[in-house]
């Protein structure tokens, strides 16, 4: 039940962010300082998310050589191919292969 509520809240919030300027009749402009900050939301949040997902039950970041290598491989492949399919395949394959050695 809590989880459904969480989905609904994020859904309403997402709709709000997509509709606010379209629905508000006045042609309000976003202040420049907000526009600048908005550009950095995605990189800052995504990088923080990667770290947050690696935290174990003891509150430590559980990251070893296989994980770091997979991120490096995935990052390089994403940069070169700009394609999620290759990024996932290369990152996961790198992770499995290197994990077998450690």
């Amino acid at each position, binding site marked *: 039940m809590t989880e459904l509520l969480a989905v609904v809240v*994020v859904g309403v919030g997402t709709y709000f962010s997509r509709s606010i*300027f*379209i*629905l508000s009749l006045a042609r309000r402009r976003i202040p420049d300082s907000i526009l600048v*900050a908005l550009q*950095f939301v995605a*990189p800052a949040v995504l990088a923080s998310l990667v770290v947050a997902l690696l935290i174990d039950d003891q509150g430590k970041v559980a990251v070893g050589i296989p994980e770091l290598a997979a991120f490096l491989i995935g990052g390089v492949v994403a*940069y070169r191919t700009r394609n999620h399919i290759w990024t996932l395949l290369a*990152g996961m394959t790198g992770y499995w292969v290197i994990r077998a050695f450690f």
Partner: protein
Amino acid sequence: MHIDRPVARRAVVDALPLFVPAVPFGLVIGLAISESGINTMVGWSSSWIIFGGAAQLTLISLLGAGTAVAAAVTAGLVVNARHLMYSAALAPTFQRQPRWFRWLGPYVLIDQLFALASVHLDDDPDVFRTYFLSAGLTFWSMWQVTTAIGLIIGPIVPESWNLEFAVPILFIGLLVLGLDRWPKVVAALVGAGVSYATAGLPNRGGLLVGALVGIMAGALAHRLRRD
């Protein structure tokens, strides 16, 4: 209602290739739902209630990892904040549209649809509406199907593959694709560093601290480079 078929067909043809890169993303969301322990239908309902990959994956993976609900919801909302820019950019075009479309259109306003719509801003209002809705409906229905397939595949994959690790790899991919300027690299590195340093905070609260400090660091780097 009269539907301009050639316009609708062109919208679908334009939308399909743009959806291809989103296929693995949708599959990973389905996998993440099946691994998270969240009720399957509740998890899948995010595909039509939220209809936004980054927010869905953020919310589901964090809830599945035992993050406090408030922190997971906040992260899910923040990651979609870029839509404010789309909304502002399309607002003048939507002024010429009927009320029902001003309410319905934003629901399907994802990255790909914004990219398509932004080259049709000066179309005749009726043509724009048909194009926007046809492309939007294409993306929407493909997304429901793709995430459902991920959900079906999820339980079949052996546990030892650690497929949940695909989630951070996908986030790394999204991150790298967005790094077109140095201040964004600063935002990412500071965000990750602060999240690492605050990892001990209860309920993964360090996530929000890291994100906030990262955004401020990016804005600061942006200002320093301009001066």
